[in-house]
């Protein structure tokens, strides 16, 4: 990776490169922007650029590009650089019995069973993570010109963690930069925000995203890329994730098939549809997360996991009705998201008027809301399928 390989964000990157060039790196950055848009990726590249062994005497902004070859770059990329660390919000999975302790064979002291953590809905940055960070930051740097700590989802720090972190920000260390990333800066302590230099990340324009993906994934068809780009709403990281997971494309295809069937479905088919939605949510989770952890999390907190991924499923369904809406108005087919299904969409468009499409979108929204409200997932899914029938 390098700056050049980041899609979009030209202006933002320019600002950061300039800071590297002039050596005016603040003690803390706050990268603000939608999730999966490239904030963490950019932060990692920034860390590399600041420490690259071959990038020692840059003359212009264009020189600011990590070499990706030197041991510093390689170690940062691999996440094994001693002066580089990424802290992420995590959720503990599995029921951990506090009473059950076993002697640690290394220290001979009783130790709690190792917790396993995974990123999902409701994950947060814990006070223990922040404490470790503070301790680590108190040491001299090892080999870095500038040590970097990246804290993703910084708004998920609970108040204790945020206050502890604030103290570190208040006592700056010359050789250290924190990069906080967040999609919702208003949820951060104002006192933290005020100590950070805010850098905004905007959704990557569709054209940029498409060109980028086409050149990077020549094996994927242009139509599929087009669809995924449109689905991703500028969240390029999400688009890449989808492209790398063939299962994901299959799930989308299954869902769109379901949409086609629902157009002429009976009640029984709808109930099956509900099942298919829940099933798709599960497949989606497994496809978009690391295998081992995904399965563990699924086992430990199935309901929460499915709620997390059902949101994505609904978004896919929404693209279908949005396309139908587009076709049913006089807007033409240029903006279709599911371009690869244009024919099917056109066939169906006659049976949907704008009102029906809007109603369908509303049902999807309602389901979205219900996900956060502890509705029974399967019932909600079946209910949704029923409501999506054209009657």
């Amino acid at each position, binding site marked *: 990776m390098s700056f050049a390989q980041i899609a979009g964000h*030209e*202006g933002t990157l*320019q600002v950061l490169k300039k800071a590297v060039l002039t050596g005016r790196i603040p003690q803390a950055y706050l990268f*603000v922007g*939608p999730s999966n848009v490239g904030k963490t990726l950019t932060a990692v590249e920034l860390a590399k650029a600041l420490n690259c062994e071959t990038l020692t005497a840059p003359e212009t902004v264009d020189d600011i590009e990590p070499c990706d070859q030197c041991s510093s770059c390689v170690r940062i990329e691999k996440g094994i650089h001693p002066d580089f660390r990424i802290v992420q919000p995590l959720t503990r999975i599995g029921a951990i*019995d*506090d009473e059950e302790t076993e002697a640690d064979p290394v220290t001979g002291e009783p130790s709690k069973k190792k917790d396993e953590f995974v990123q999902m*809905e*409701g994950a947060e940055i814990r006070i223990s993570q922040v404490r470790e960070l503070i301790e680590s930051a108190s040491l001299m740097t090892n080999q870095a010109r500038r040590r970097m700590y990246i804290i993703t989802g910084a708004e998920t720090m609970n*108040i204790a963690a945020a*206050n502890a972190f604030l*103290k570190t920000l208040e006592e700056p260390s010359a050789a250290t930069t924190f990069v906080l990333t967040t*999609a*919702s*800066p*208003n*949820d951060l*302590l*104002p006192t933290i*925000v*005020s100590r950070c230099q*805010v850098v905004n990340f*905007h*959704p990557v*324009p*569709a*054209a940029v995203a*498409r060109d980028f993906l086409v050149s990077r994934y020549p094996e994927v068809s242009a139509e599929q890329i087009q669809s995924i780009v449109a689905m991703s*709403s*500028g*969240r390029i990281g999400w688009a890449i994730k989808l492209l790398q997971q063939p299962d994901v494309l299959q799930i989308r295809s299954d869902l769109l098939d379901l949409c086609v069937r629902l157009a002429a479905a009976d009640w029984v088919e709808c109930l099956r549809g509900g099942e298919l939605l829940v099933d798709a949510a599960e497949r989606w989770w497994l496809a978009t997360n690391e295998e081992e952890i995904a399965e563990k999390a699924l086992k430990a907190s199935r309901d929460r996991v499915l709620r997390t991924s059902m*949101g994505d499923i*609904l*978004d896919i369904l*929404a*693209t279908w009705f*949005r396309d139908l*809406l*587009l076709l*049913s*108005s*006089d*807007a033409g087919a*240029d*903006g279709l998201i599911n371009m690869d299904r244009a024919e099917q969409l056109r066939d169906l468009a006659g049976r949907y008027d*704008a*009102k029906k*499409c*809007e109603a369908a*979108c*509303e049902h*999807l*929204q*309602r389901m*979205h*809301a*219900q*996900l*956060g*409200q502890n509705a029974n997932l399967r019932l909600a899914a079946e209910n949704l399928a029923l409501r999506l029938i054209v009657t």
Partner: protein
Amino acid sequence: MSNIQVLPESVANRIAAGEVVERPASVVKELIENAIDAGASRIEIQLAAGGKELIRVIDDGSGMSAEDLRLAVQRFATSKISAAEDLDSIVTMGFRGEALPSIGAVAQLQISTRQQDSAEAHRITVRGGEVAGEETVAAPVGTDVEVTHLFYNTPAREKFLATTATERGHCIEWCQRLALGRPDIAFKVLHDNQTVLTTAGQGGLQAVIAAIHGSNDARLFLPMRLETEDITISGFISSPRLTRANRRAQLFFVNNRFVRSSSLSHAVTAAYGMLLPSGRQPLCVIHITIGPNAVDPNVHPTKIEVRFGNQGRIHGLCQQAVEAGLAEAGLRSLSTSRPGLSRTDATGAPPQPAAGRWDGPLPDMSRRAVRLRVNPFVDSIDARDDGLEVFADAPPDAADQQEADQSALQAEAAQAPQVLGQLSGRYIIAQAGTDLLLIDQHRAAERVLLHQMGDKTTPVARQLLAVPLNLELTPSEAAAVEDNAESLLELGFEFEEFGPSAYLLRSIPAALVGRDYETAVGDLIRDLAQWQAPSSLERARDELAALVACHGAIKAGTQLTHAEMQRLVEDLAATDAPAVCPHGDPIIIAITASQLDSKFKRS
């Protein structure tokens, strides 16, 4: 593919119906929202004659390309390609462009815009809905929209406009709301060249409140925050000293969008209860975040009345949050000051509110009930059904309830619990009447110690510091330290002035030795300075006492003789709140005979 596409007819029609442009304020709102959606970090709003003559919004956001600019002013174009309800675009794109054609239809419109990577800006002029000119100009990155002579071509509409002062008020009100919704953006609002509002975009919500209400009134705003798994409610509520005659100043933001909600307003007012003078309403700025994706599809972007899927729950949480905020400031007591003994269904609904000013379940209480419910000990005995009763606090000041509880307590006391034995050196098993009690011995000892200390005014042991802590204080914090020097010293904190705004902390309460006293003293000073509440000191004293109690109390894992246990149980019964330890965790779990019967299937 261009960023901006033509809208479907359905949405177009709605815009044509004039939903967007009713009065200058709606233009102001649309333009500012456009600027926000463009990722602006600074927004300047210039108004003249209440917006009737001029509305100009300048941002430093991403700007538009020449092509997008042309599309934007065409009728019915938007960067959102489909209907307003469209899900995923709410997440990211906003509704850029939707309002511009409508505005262009009823006013003279001029837009200059430049993208980051573009060397020059494009300017377009629209008159009566038609593009009247296009040119390339020099301008900074961002967008500058100038709307002049609103409704000049629709005299009927123009007639409905109110006086300049009223329209000005509406415009500024929207600026304030949007600024409160996005404290991270710097707003500057000028009316007839006079600055009426500036926010720094740095200091957070409180700074924006100060900018709008003035720093004196802003000091009367109390912070509040409540988080659940899926909802975060945070913001500021006014002290009961700062009230209004109506609810206009109760502002709610759902996922950063301003919304109106009579339900939320009601929840806020209810939380204040008797604290409010009659006929007065508190002020508040409350942000509600639903779902980690920051998507609330129920919020319609052009309408501001919000409906929640689960109205009751949001109402309840909002009320809880406000109550907790008030309690935090010492304005209403949720503490265990004089609670009696009541029984709460551990798995069912929270306890019924008593008569009086409490018109909802006590937040403190329901939280505790939740905590008790997830207590692993409870779960291990009985996972789901209503098999357990747990003691919890009764609502304070709920006279009726307390009386009833008092008699229950007396009834209990009449047959003092008999100790049956000790379980794994941690729990005392006792019998009260026909009930089985499980008592956490460490927490019980803590409660007893605290109770005994509370009776006397125990002087706090003070530890002097070899290396005094250097504190940089703000003027108000320094004043708080000076004003409360004596009380602070009584607590164990000794300060010495060390130059302008610098103080040395010379001693700390011995109970804090080995702990993070820097944070403790910092919190205390900030509290004192901000709220000037003597309750801060009282709370600090209680917390210290609880700490000392915790140190001194019998630890879990200590084997006790029967006599020791009996004495502990009797001492515990004599305390104010035998059921809950100073940290709020349960001390006693009770299982009734009938519950045992049903467990053993003996009905």
